[in-house]
């Protein structure tokens, strides 16, 4: 009996889930779109925001006493790194501009600058069709839904 002939019940379960996922997801999304659910989600979000603020304020104090950085400290650090990144970007742009002014090619692109003379192939589509194309374009298998 070859491997192909063997029935793997776990794989069958997985395949069943993959096939029926959209149906379950649609049902869950429809439930979440219900006005009452949307209302309670909004209320939950408000409460969660208040709770998070209270919690982060009180925890921030404890962490500070213990000399341990809090999430906000890391976010500040992230901001500082972003500023440094931005400054480095400015330097890179300045260098690129200087190279351009000096007429020297970039180290990243040592090739000659391409000429802007290319023409469209003879078999290219003609402009202005104004038609909506649907059925003829639907060639991809239904599995590609990501």
């Amino acid at each position: 009996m070859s491997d192909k002939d063997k029935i793997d019940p776990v794989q069958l379960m997985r395949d069943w889930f993959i096939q029926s996922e959209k149906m379950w997801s649609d049902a869950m999304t429809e439930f979440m779109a219900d006005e009452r659910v949307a209302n309670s989600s909004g209320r939950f979000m408000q409460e969660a925001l208040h709770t998070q603020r209270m919690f982060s304020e009180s925890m921030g104090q404890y962490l500070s006493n213990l000399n341990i950085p809090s999430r906000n400290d890391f976010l500040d650090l992230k901001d500082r790194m972003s500023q440094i990144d931005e400054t480095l970007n400015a330097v890179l742009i300045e260098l690129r501009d200087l190279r351009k002014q000096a007429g020297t090619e970039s180290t990243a692109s040592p090739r000659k600058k391409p000429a802007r003379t290319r023409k469209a192939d003879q078999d290219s589509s003609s402009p202005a069709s104004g038609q909506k194309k649907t059925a003829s374009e639907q060639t991809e298998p239904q599995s590609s839904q990501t």
Partner: protein
Amino acid sequence: MNATATPFMADPEEITQAEVDARVDQLIRRTIERNIPGLADLPQTESDLEVGPTPKELVYAQDTAQLFHYQSPVDEVYRVPILIIMSPVAKGYILDLAKGQSFVEYFLNRGHDVYMLDWRAPRANQSQLSLANYVQDLLGNCVNQVVEDAGEPDVTLVGYCMGGLLSLCYTALNSGGPVKNLACFTTPINSDGMTLHQRWVRSKSFDIDLLIDELGNIPSELINASMQALRPLQRNANQLSLLNNVQNDDFVKASMRFERWANDQIPLPGVMARDWTNDFLRDNLLVRNKLILGGKRVDFGGITVPFLHVAASFDHIIPEAASRDLINLVSSEDKDEIVVRGGHVSLVAGGNAMYRLWPKLDEWVSARSE
């Protein structure tokens, strides 16, 4: 008990836990090495996953905007450069995932001069950036930079998702400007087609101002969660699909790259999020030509340049209903719409895109780039 027995025949009491662990470890390693060829070659960490391999240079940067120019591998390019505008919540490397799977690489090889407007995460003090800033200042300055850098008066804009929306608004507000052609992929313009998000923001208890006051910028985790809510079990299905294909190295690598990108969202500046929520999702001003940006009304009827709209028939993030009015609102005489079978991401990256969309787009842009 025979004292000269082999280790496997030894008295269980004589075998230590460490020996058992070592044997099990060896057995598992050997099984993996024998049965899953090439597993050792798989990336061990996220940083091992090479994404965005096409050589590029930073041309311009302002606030959250970064303008890149890709190195052309050919000697002759079309006159009109292409500027790709990414969604402000998504990283641009989805269009340059890996060698051979790259939208950017494809267009470079087809003789186009390619620039990309990619976005950075906003800092806390950049939460005041609005939709008008994104359209008129950041995108506007990048378009001007492309014109200056390429030395050509025209540019083709290619916008993806919210990037398409920014491109549309910019083109509508700057008719007579440098935009020669405009192509938009899965671009939301009608929030009536985005039922779940519209109901959430229209509920009495949803308070975007509170959210912004508390958080400043909208964190990427929240954006990711709101996207996942549109198809809550899809990620689980993808994981099971990965398990089914675990012996296929290429599948695993591609899946890891997509997964990395899907988890690598960009936070949205607070004021921009408020504009998106109030003006677009709640009041649906865009489709009614009533959106005001920087004191000017955004009227899609003012768009007269050649226009291409591409929608995906299985897009759950921007469903067809959210974008299908676009083709009728634009005044261009030369306009086309293509509906491709696929999802929000597979439309632009992956097999569906590579063999269906990219050649179509290349054909469309090439014919208008001389």
